[in-house]
């Protein structure tokens, strides 16, 4: 455990550097950074709305971070969690609209379907990289756009045809029986608990199972692994599939949660979501990096980013300051001492 904490130090340093630079930026713009952070934290942590937001964001962020971390352990970059999640979400929406199922069964069915769809989508990139040497970075980013495009189309064309949908609102609400159970007191869905469980599960999977071992071996040393009979191609694809599955779950969770019903749907109606850079998919990468690509660590990192996000939302300041901050933090995280220690990706010599 101490090893994990030790590797967190460089990321924490980067984090503070990032915050420091962001503060300087704010100061230049005439804002008082201390004020900003103070309002942020109090807004997030003391108001009931803030608290429930924190938990909701935290759940999403954790899952998105895991969607990046797990394939990363095999040496493959999954920058496509955004798209995978979007497809997961739209799958849920489709099921709600077209498949009548009894109350308890349908959420389970929808979630499983979303997971499968997310996994299939990421599998495309996984296979393309493992077997055709097409860089996953590129294909996952491209497929994000494709996913959003498909989702928008389905939403407006297919679902919009069947359900009364007023484009002005950001929500396509499903009705109360279609949401996931809520956690009492905080008025948020139980997704954050699910996320924590998935994080613990991922950590266990990677550290204790033979498949997890093979995945890590592929990422840390694909040549020695290959010479001992592990097939790096298969492992990469499997890792990607798992990553996509987690992202699909995140998408489903987002869409089905109370109050947060529709991050993603908001994108759809907005004329279309391509990159959605504020999107949780990309934030997930920042969360993962700050957590030094450690599954358990991502929970804590997610809490931090969730506070940031929730605080800004509840305080009324625009979300974009947070984006800028996230961007700066990511830039700092890219520094080699950090990257080497954090991300052991197999040599990217064959770029495409």
């Amino acid at each position, binding site marked *: 455990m101490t090893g994990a904490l030790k590797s967190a130090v460089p990321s924490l340093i980067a984090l503070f550097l990032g915050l420091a630079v962001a503060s300087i*930026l704010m100061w230049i*713009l*005439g804002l008082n950074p201390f004020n900003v952070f103070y309002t942020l934290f109090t807004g997030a942590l003391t108001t009931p709305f803030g608290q429930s937001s924190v938990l909701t964001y935290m759940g999403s962020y954790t899952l998105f971070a895991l969607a990046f971390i797990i394939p990363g352990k095999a040496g493959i*970059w999954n*920058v496509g969690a955004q798209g995978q999640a979007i497809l997961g979400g739209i799958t849920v929406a489709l099921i709600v609209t077209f498949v009548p199922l009894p109350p308890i069964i349908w959420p389970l069915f929808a979630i499983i379907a979303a997971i499968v769809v997310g996994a299939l989508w990421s599998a*495309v990139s996984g296979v*393309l990289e493992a077997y*055709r*040497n*097409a860089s996953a*970075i*590129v*294909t996952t*980013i*491209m497929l994000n*756009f*494709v996913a*959003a*495009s*498909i989702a*928008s*189309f389905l*939403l*407006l*064309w297919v679902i*919009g045809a069947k359900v009364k949908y007023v484009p002005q609102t950001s929500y396509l609400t499903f009705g109360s029986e279609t949401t996931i159970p809520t956690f009492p007191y905080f008025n948020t869905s139980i997704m954050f608990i699910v996320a924590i469980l998935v994080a613990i599960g991922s950590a266990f999977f990677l550290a204790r199972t033979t498949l997890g071992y093979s995945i890590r071996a592929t990422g840390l040393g694909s040549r020695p692994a290959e010479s001992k009979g592990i097939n790096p191609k298969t492992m990469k694809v499997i890792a990607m599939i798992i990553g996509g599955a987690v992202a699909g779950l995140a998408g489903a969770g987002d869409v089905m949660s109370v109050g947060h019903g529709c991050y993603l749907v908001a994108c759809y109606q*907005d*004329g*279309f*979501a*391509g*990159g*959605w*850079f*504020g999107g949780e998919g*990309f934030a997930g*990468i*920042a969360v993962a*990096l700050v957590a030094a690509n450690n599954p358990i660590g991502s929970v804590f990192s997610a809490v931090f980013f969730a506070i940031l996000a929730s605080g800004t939302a509840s305080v009324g300041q*625009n979300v*974009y*300051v*947070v*984006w*800028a901050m*996230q*961007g*700066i933090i*990511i*830039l700092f*995280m*890219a*520094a*080699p001492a950090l*990257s080497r220690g954090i*991300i052991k990706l197999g040599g*990217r*010599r064959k*770029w*495409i």
Partner: protein
Amino acid sequence: MDLTPFVLLIVFGLQWAIPIATAADGELVTEKSGILNIGIYGVMVISGFAAAVANYQTGQALGSSSAYVGLLAGMAAGVGVNFLFAFLATKIHVDQVIAGIGINIFAVGITYVLLQRFYEIDGTPISNSVAPLFTVGGLSQGIAPKISPLMVVMFVLPVLVYLFLARTKLGLHIRAVGENPQAAEAAGIDVVKTRLTATAIGGSLLGLGGAYLTVDFFNSFIPDPTGTVFPGFIALAAVIAGGWSPPYVLGMSVLFGACVGLRFVLIAPGALVYLTYMLPFVMTVAVLGVASKRLRPPAALGVPYKKE
């Protein structure tokens, strides 16, 4: 048969091809030297913002030529950001992919913040734009198709880029550095300097692309959280699908531009429009999947260069 939709498609397509092709050419030069800049989108946003601001601020004083000031400001911003990126990549050996993602996220955030802070509106007010060569009828979509002088630039650029890479010393050095930096170093070429220069040059073109959008096409800066306004990723796709060869990249850019242009032309069923958004990307993924073994990116692309 009513030809208007086709004419419109061609016109819109060509218009949209301008930022795509310009940015793609810029990214091509950068990538030829081995630097992979996924942050094209962010650079375009920042340049577009800088251009809009410059355009607006000098609007009163300079009249219609403020647009050119805007373009220059945009190019300068592009050079600046790209140079910073290249510096981080070559001297500090940051991971280029992560840094690129960081730039993207940062760009959207910071421009919006600055916009709110200084202008308190959602788009910088319209000022002067580069005078179009001629317009083609009025149109209900709200963005009257006009043919910008930059369209000429778009067709000339690939020729310039090709000649630059093929016939000049620097161009040769760039191609060498991106393919086999060790060999280039052995031949006495300063790999780091070459890459910095190439990225700066590329940045100027990225900036031009971004500036075109805010100064000419939209005539305002539109914050773009969804990535639909500034076609940075489409440009990236064009470079890849065009196999890093200027003429093909231009071809792909025009093709992708047409895809974007479809959005404005398809007045019919609203939802189908969304499917057009994905065309450039589907095509690129398909190209990658099929021709990946034959596509030839610069071999050292994205790999940080460390001396012995």
